């Protein structure tokens, strides 16, 4: 399954454009713009995704600080709000409309731009060619386009923050009719159009990326790299891409229909509405249709976010426990199970829309089924570190934290997936707690684990460890402090997407708690700036990598030069002789055998 031939021509075409590679023989000077901006090197593109993702994470995080100020201190005023929000926060108090705009953009950018674009974009691009032994993606050009669509989507979303009617403000799910009628809310004006256009471009970006990832994984593996020798990162990224390719187009269609309803007078989602003093002519549509379309993407989306984190955690846990991943095939099977079931559970977000109770029952069953492969993964991770020789690198700490968070957040899914409980918990803070822990924070932990772990490969330097540990402990403790108590608020029925609770007899007793949560959120946010600082300073000032395989890892990326150029390997791509998890006695006192080392005589392949 060699792709050597294809690659040679590939490298050639690049060369004729004056391409170059840091170490290799042909050292033409390449222009800054083609090298760092319109680059087709998957490693550069991955860094572009990562840095753009970091930008959006800061924006989204800062928004959460702002609206947490409102939630924690509804009576107080803050100069900083006026500084950033201007007229939207007259006298230091945020408008409800801005509050809703902020949570909407916060949710949208963190889910899509950071944990989908930023996470998959970074690690699929970086790891797929390096770990399967390919010189680049199947189509480096589409890959570049994928990034630029993502960037433009971001610019449009960002610009919606500055228009006079404000950004979209119907929640990240943007349910019509609210999002369809500009009479219904200020944010449903131009802001909503920009949101829809931005998401449409984002879908294009993710399709271009996803198709590329799938094709690359299936076709461009180096000699000897059979599917069953792939590291679990690659398996996870493969299923992530499949999920995306099959579900994102549905979101696109939802968005297009919504645009029609907004501007072309159609009634896909609208029926029998009286708003702002007049009855609208639309009849016959159904707002529920939108919810079906949205969640047909929306649910797979949470696995699009989770799977790369799972894959990286598997890889990192095995490497730093110096043990093979436990149950490699069970891990793959559970990925397959999760991928299939992810398409069959979407309506668990709609138990209280008045759907047929029978259908609801079917979705309960399917939803709880998905807990089984998830449980298998958790137990396999635990067995992986059992009797290991755990080396607490920063990446490993985050991977362990990921497991803890995934357990906590996954278990609360069993409450929400059971419709008779969801009928009370739906749209309360219990949901906020659940999805932040299982999807938001734990995927972030997977991402941090990946960044700390592969930073040496990306930049030829290490990130600062001590700062990394501080980052880890503050984030881990802080995340639980923020989100754990929210479960209780939700059990007490406290609704989400509320700007102020002080007029509610049933919910106002949580004022003090909300303050505490807000303070913790600010601390956690500052700890993330810590990370950002560490990241950028370490690019230039970090400790240099001297050993090409600093973690004594088995996978192929560590057989490349310390700073690989475009094309990744200087000479031939290594041939693969074994699976990725031979962490065992190598006969010379070492405890690992990389994939490119031939089997010893009498040694059984896994």
């Amino acid at each position, binding site marked *: 399954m060699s792709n050597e031939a294809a690659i040679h021509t590939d490298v050639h075409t690049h060369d004729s454009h004056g391409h170059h590679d840091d170490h290799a023989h042909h050292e033409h000077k390449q222009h800054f713009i083609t090298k760092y901006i319109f680059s087709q090197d998957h490693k550069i593109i991955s860094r572009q995704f990562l840095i753009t993702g970091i930008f959006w994470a800061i924006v989204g995080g800062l928004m959460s600080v702002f609206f947490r100020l409102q939630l924690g201190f509804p009576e107080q005023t803050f100069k900083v709000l006026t500084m950033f929000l201007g007229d939207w926060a007259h006298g230091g108090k945020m408008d409800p409309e801005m509050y809703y705009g902020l949570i909407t953009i916060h949710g949208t950018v963190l889910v899509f731009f950071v944990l989908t674009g930023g996470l998959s974009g970074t690690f699929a691009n970086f790891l797929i060619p390096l770990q399967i032994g390919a010189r680049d993606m199947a189509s480096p050009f589409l890959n570049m386009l994928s990034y630029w669509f993502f960037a433009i989507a971001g610019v449009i979303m960002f610009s919606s923050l500055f228009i006079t009617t404000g950004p979209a403000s119907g929640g990240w799910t943007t349910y019509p*009719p609210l999002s369809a009628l500009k009479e219904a809310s200020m944010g449903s004006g131009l802001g909503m159009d920009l949101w829809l256009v931005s998401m449409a471009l984002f879908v294009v970006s993710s399709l271009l990326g996803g198709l590329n990832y799938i094709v690359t994984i299936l076709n461009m593996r180096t000699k000897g790299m059979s599917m069953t020798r792939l590291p679990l990162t690659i398996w996870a990224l493969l299923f992530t891409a499949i999920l995306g390719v099959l579900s994102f187009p549905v979101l696109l269609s939802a968005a297009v229909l919504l645009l029609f309803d907004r501007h072309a007078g159609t009634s896909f989602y609208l029926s029998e509405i009286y708003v702002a003093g007049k009855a609208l002519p639309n009849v016959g549509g159904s707002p529920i249709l939108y919810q079906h379309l949205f969640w047909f993407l929306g649910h797979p989306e949470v696995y699009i976010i989770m799977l790369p984190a799972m894959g990286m955690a598997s890889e990192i846990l095995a490497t730093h426990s110096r043990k093979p991943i436990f149950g490699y095939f069970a891990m793959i099977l559970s990925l397959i199970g999760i991928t299939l079931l992810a398409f069959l559970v979407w309506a668990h977000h709609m138990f209280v829309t008045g759907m047929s109770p029978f259908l609801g029952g079917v979705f309960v069953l399917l939803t709880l089924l998905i807990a089984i492969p998830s449980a298998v993964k958790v137990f396999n991770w635990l067995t992986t570190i059992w009797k290991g020789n755990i080396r607490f690198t920063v990446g490993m700490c985050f991977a362990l934290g990921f497991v803890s968070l995934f357990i906590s957040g996954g278990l609360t899914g069993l409450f929400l997936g059971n419709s008779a409980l969801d009928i009370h918990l739906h749209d309360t803070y219990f949901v906020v707690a659940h999805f932040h822990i299982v999807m938001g924070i734990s995927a972030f932990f997977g991402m941090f684990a990946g960044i700390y772990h592969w930073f040496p490969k990306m930049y030829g330097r290490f990130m600062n460890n001590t700062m990394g540990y501080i980052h880890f402990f503050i984030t881990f403790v802080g995340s639980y402090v923020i989100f754990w108590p929210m479960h209780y608020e939700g059990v007490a*029925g406290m609704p989400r*997407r509320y700007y102020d609770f002080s007029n509610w007899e049933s919910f106002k007793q949580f004022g003090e708690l909300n303050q505490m949560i807000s303070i913790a959120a600010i601390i956690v946010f500052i700890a993330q700036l810590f990370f950002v600082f560490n990241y950028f300073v370490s690019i230039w000032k970090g400790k240099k990598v001297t050993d090409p395989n600093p973690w004594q890892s088995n996978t192929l990326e560590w057989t490349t030069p310390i700073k690989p150029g475009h094309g990744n390997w200087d000479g031939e791509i290594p041939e693969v002789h074994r699976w990725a998890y031979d962490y065992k006695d190598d006969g010379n006192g070492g405890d690992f055998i990389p994939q490119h080392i031939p089997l010893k005589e009498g040694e059984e392949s896994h």
Partner: protein
Amino acid sequence: MSGLMLVFLVVLIFVVLYQVARSSEMVAQIQGEQQFDKKRNKILGFSMLILMIAFFVGIVWCHEYMLPLMGPEAASNHGVQYDFMFKVTLWVTGIVFVLTQVLLFWFCFKYQRNGDKAPVFFAHSNKLELIWTTVPAIAMAVLVAIGLKAWFTMTGEAPKGAMQIEIVGKQFNWISRYPGPDGELGKKYFLNINDKDNLLGQDWTDKRNMDDIIIPNGELRLVKDVPVELIIGSRDVIHDVGLSHFRMKMDAVPGITSRIWFTPTITTAEMKRKTGNENFVYELSCDQMCGKGHYSMRAVVVVETQAEHDKWLKEQKSYYVQNHPEEFPAEAPIVAPVDSSKKITMNK
């Protein structure tokens, strides 16, 4: 200006920290990788143990703090079922939670690398994998079974003789409608809506509408131990009838009528006594994002005895009568449906 100073200060702190952290790494280099690795694993392995203890102490502490703040017991028949199911699920997940988290942190501590253990090659075991596929599967089957049983009773047909009340959402308040003496809600259509004298768009050619009572602030008056069916609708965008004390919730979707039913089991007055809170009220909250006033979309639910309810009903005038007082001389009785229609024709 002070903002700028603050930013400057933060950056300064970062730089100092980074430098300190870097020098600690220099020390590590001098010590030698192996020595450093061992020391680090020892410190971090131990930290993980402390983290676990802090985690569980924190959970207990949080629980103690929260318990007094939680709402009262469920106030409906379905709510009681909910509370039971919640407990079962909490036990199942709680056990798994404690087990897995303890193992995770304990393994971190126990199996830290200290340089003298040979690697263990343990790549899979069919037996183990089978166990942890089937045990969760059985647990899930149990949860699904009790869940569906509860779900189908909650969403089943309302019992015969249930009281019917319509509740309609609009930006940003609720409107409730009671069927009046004829016990039936009249037809409505959205094109008839106007905010002056036809809030819900009732069709006045349908005589059943004549005695319907509308409460424009959405107050719900329920009777203890009498099942109630809520007929739910919306005038504009999607809202949601959230009845947290009754553990019930249902979307209000324009163009679609949805329903829920339940039987309230504790009156407001009883609940005031139980909670010791003179200000206690049952509240109806809008639980689906509906625009800038979403957080203020509140209505009060009153659960009372049959006698109180009858008395209250008697005092209400039908919406039609309220808006067409000229058609009804003051001494006339509260309209009965048949009479009223006659009266209208007679008055003409």
